[in-house]
């Protein structure tokens, strides 16, 4: 058994108008990774490759000690996969889906399923076509959670939900994930959703991984520094600082690796520090993507 539930090394996939390029990713067992990217960034392609649904053109993929795509049958026995573009059978009831999944997975836990039905406020006899989008997502989550998968892969499960339904689904998910330690890969374009449940974050943009780290490291390292310079002076660029903005005396700079040495460096240019502010994950994501695209960040 390796320490990683998911391991992608140099994975590539070529399409006519999109290339997934040199994606390398490690998801340690027991961690919850948020996978953030804009629409078309390559999140779903990466996830489909690690599920064995798409064959990579280059690189190696290992999921729960199975080489993918060859080992997808064994791997999928232990993966719970819910995707934004996944639907249940509209004419069948939730109860039918539960018995269908139970017939396939010996690990199906009927007691836990009944508990999830109650927690998610679902009615087993209700047909899928009569459910709201939020209820459908909860039903899909119930079907994967009650078979207690080692790895949970959630591909934009909250996309298209109204704010109330989104909060309900996230709340239910957080509650369930708090019960036991599971490895989770949670993709979303919504950084707030990811921030709530993840302990590791990976950013993807234009088919490339642009950053991957512990959530706390991002939040600890990134700072926005506001400073003033003397009248008539010009701002001097400081290495390692991004997005220097301002006019006249008042300026703002983004620091991706804030340390004790950062402020003295700025002060040495004549700047007078007025504020040091933490940044949200969304701001960090946007800044990372923008600067990668411009070639400023390595």
């Amino acid at each position, binding site marked *: 058994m390796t320490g990683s539930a998911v391991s992608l090394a140099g994975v590539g996939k070529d399409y006519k108008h999109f290339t997934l390029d040199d994606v390398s990713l490690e998801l340690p067992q027991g961690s919850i990774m948020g996978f953030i990217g804009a629409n078309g960034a390559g999140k779903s392609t990466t996830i489909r490759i690690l599920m064995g649904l798409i064959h990579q053109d280059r690189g190696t993929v290992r999921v729960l000690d199975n080489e993918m795509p060859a080992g997808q049958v064994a791997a*999928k026995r232990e993966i719970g996969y819910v995707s934004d573009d*996944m639907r249940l*059978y509209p004419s069948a009831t939730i109860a039918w889906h539960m018995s269908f999944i139970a017939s*396939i997975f010996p690990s199906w836990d009927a007691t836990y399923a009944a508990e999830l039905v109650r927690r998610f406020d679902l009615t087993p006899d209700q047909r899928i076509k009569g459910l709201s989008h939020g209820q459908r997502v909860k039903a899909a989550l119930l079907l994967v959670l009650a078979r207690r998968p080692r790895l949970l892969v959630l591909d934009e499960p909250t996309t298209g939900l109204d704010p109330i339904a989104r909060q309900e689904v996230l709340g239910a998910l957080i509650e369930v994930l708090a019960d036991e330690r599971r490895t989770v890969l949670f993709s979303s374009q919504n950084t707030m959703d990811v921030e709530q449940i993840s302990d590791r974050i990976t950013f993807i943009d234009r088919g490339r991984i642009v950053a991957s780290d512990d959530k706390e490291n991002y939040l600890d390292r990134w700072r926005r520094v506001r400073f003033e310079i003397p009248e008539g002076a010009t701002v001097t660029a400081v290495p390692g600082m991004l997005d220097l903005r301002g006019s006249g005396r008042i300026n703002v700079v983004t620091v991706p690796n804030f340390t004790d040495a950062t402020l003295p460096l700025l002060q040495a240019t004549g700047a007078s520090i007025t504020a040091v502010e933490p940044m949200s994950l969304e701001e960090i994501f946007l800044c990372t993507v923008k600067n990668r695209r411009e070639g400023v960040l390595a």
Partner: protein
Amino acid sequence: MNAPVIRSLVLKDWFLMRRPLAFYLVAAAIALAMCGSGSLLAFEAGAILLITVVISMAIHIVMQTIANERVEKTLAFVMSLPISAMDYTSAKLIANGGLFLVPWAIVTAGAVGLIAFVGDLPNGLIPWAVAVMLELAVSYFFLVGVSLVSESMPWTIVGMVVGNLGFQAFLFYVSNVPVIARQMKGEAIVWNGPIAAILLLEIAAIVALLGLTYWAQSRKRDFI
């Protein structure tokens, strides 16, 4: 071969198709009753209805169990289960084969029984009727293959049109082969000669279509 999951997927398709299938069987029974009513007009209307029922059933099964899985996005749910693309193909071919062939066999047996035991239809019609019914099965497996391999509703519709045109051409051809046309009007049931060759070709076509479908599916690298 992942037999337990394939079995669950086959049962799933049977469950989801149980009501339409019951409807088509009732419609086929009505068509057979019309054929056996003794009136020539009712016989002709019944025969047309019977063929229409079998063609409609074939289209409905393929649309519901294959083409719609992509359109309604239930394919992602199925492929999240512990199966490979080839397991999925096997499940679809077994489920669709059974869904079509069971009612098809009942309807074919009903048609043969009707010719043999009811009214004054010549028994020589039986080989012709079997060839026509078998051709419907060929068209069906062609449509299953097109829908599975293309994973596309437009191509499934093209497959439907091509299959239907092929069936009409076959119907015209088989009814106008002089030997068969002569035998159809007689009381003797003749299985040898041109009709035997046609039946063998039809069976070979079904086997070839199944093989081609498997082959094309095995070459796919992206399944969803």
